[in-house]
């Protein structure tokens, strides 16, 4: 498909400009698996919809690639937010996964950060996915009361944490001081009854684990 190729070429150029080496490209699911088996890359980026049927081949191929190579980081790009797919990706492992709306590629700096973060074993969930997940938790069961206890600023912070942002990035995004973010974070952990982790990565995992646990019920 011509439009898809256009997008892929653009993406390759963008990544190359930002110091990320693209070892191979493919235009369908089996192609992705061949590349992953052959080149053993650190990270695979793929669309949810791939030929031949343009349904969810991308997600299925990504999950299969991940099954074959548990260390492979996976970033899925999609034309639309679908909580079902995010949940499947997270179920395959919480480190080195990302699910972003395609248009995020236009915010070059943020996108490249997300790519690097996922490649390094972090997470990058689209802010719309995160707010859908949190909105979902909001209504059901045990998590509702706890999340309800968060102030709007803390909730915003939690969404950013769940996207995989560092405290410094959150401070920039929310236009507050680093100290203020740290205070929000410790409040969140206290209110959600989570032990504070020693690093960003564990922190994200804890939040995601919490979100997923309440999704499952």
């Amino acid at each position, binding site marked *: *498909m011509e*439009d*898809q190729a*256009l*997008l892929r070429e*653009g*993406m390759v*150029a*963008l990544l190359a*400009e930002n110091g990320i080496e693209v070892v191979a490209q493919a235009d369908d699911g089996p192609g992705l698996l061949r590349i992953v088996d052959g080149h053993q890359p650190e990270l695979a980026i793929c669309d*949810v*919809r791939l030929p031949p049927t*343009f*349904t*969810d081949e991308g997600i299925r191929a990504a999950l299969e690639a991940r099954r074959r190579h548990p260390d492979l980081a996976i970033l899925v790009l999609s*034309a*639309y937010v*679908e*909580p*079902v797919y995010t949940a499947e990706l997270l179920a395959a492992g919480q480190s080195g996964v990302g699910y972003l709306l*395609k*248009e995020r*590629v*236009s*915010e*070059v*700096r943020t*996108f490249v950060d997300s790519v690097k973060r996922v490649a390094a074993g972090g997470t990058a969930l689209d802010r719309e996915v995160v707010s*859908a997940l949190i*909105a*979902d938790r909001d*209504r*059901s069961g045990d998590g509702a009361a706890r999340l309800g206890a968060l102030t709007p600023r803390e909730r915003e912070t939690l969404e950013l944490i769940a996207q995989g942002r560092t405290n410094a990035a959150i401070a920039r995004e929310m236009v507050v001081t680093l100290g203020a973010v740290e205070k929000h974070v410790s409040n969140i952990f206290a209110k959600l009854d989570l032990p504070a982790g020693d690093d960003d990565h564990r922190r994200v995992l804890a939040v995601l684990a919490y979100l997923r646990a309440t999704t499952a019920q």
Partner: protein
Amino acid sequence: MTDHGHEIDWRSVTRGAAFVPSLVLLTALVVIWAATGADYFWPMWAALGLAIPTGLWYAVRWARLRPKGGGRWYAMQASVSVVLVATCLAVWAMSGGGFFWPIFPFVALSVALALNPLAFRPGQRKLEVRVDELTRTRSGALDVQASELRRIERDLHDGAQARLVALSMQLGRAEERLADHPDSAALVRQAREEATAAIRELRDLARGIAPPVLADRGLVAAVESLASRSTVNVEVVGHLDHRLPPVVETAAYFVAAESLTNVAKHAPGASARVTLHLDGAMLVVEVADNGPGGANPAGSGLTGLKQRVEALDGRLEVHSVAREGTVVWAVLPCE
């Protein structure tokens, strides 16, 4: 007389036709015939006498298994005619042949049979053919429409939107390179933001036309996705082991979507349950909530749903009793 479906139940044959007494009687007659000199084989007339009512009984029974309507009466006439002609043939053969008179009842009954649809129900056949044709073309048209909508959704996402994404990405790259020219960079950023807004609008448009997850993953996943977006608590119970025709999936999806929207609007504190299951070749969709009830089934949303479902020869019912919640129940034939 019980209905045994389309298969022959031999136990009922022997029981229903008084088979055993008949057999005993005939055996007795044959013994008497043999004892009285085994002359002219007259017991065959008794056998014929027993065979005629039995034949008629089966003829009527067979006809009653046909589908209801004009066709059943026509089948009845045909089967009784067959029995009558067979009787005439038997009488002719048993009385020693000769002039082949059974040809007259045969011709008469055949003519009556041939004229029947015209004589008793003028236009009936034509009408049936027309109804068949209309049913077929209507479901064909709806199928085509549902698939076309999905194609449009795909084209929007994977065609126009992909191009816009490529465009906004190039703008993003240009913006990076213009770091030293803030004025130009601001202009490019504006253009990029416009492109992003267009992408968002396209996405909303595409979702309204045909929800992508419905096309990609099918009904249960799409309804689960709806549930996760709803502002009320929704439980989805359903498992379908194969994909249904697009037109059925779309109709069922909109039944769930519209009903959940109604729950969110009129019973914000309630929780709802969506049940999806196949009952033979029928898909049953039920959306039940524990809200205040008292919904107006003639409301515009529900009327629209009803029309959508009835266009597929399905049925939609709304039960809404004050203080007992609302149940929207739809059944859709899947061919």
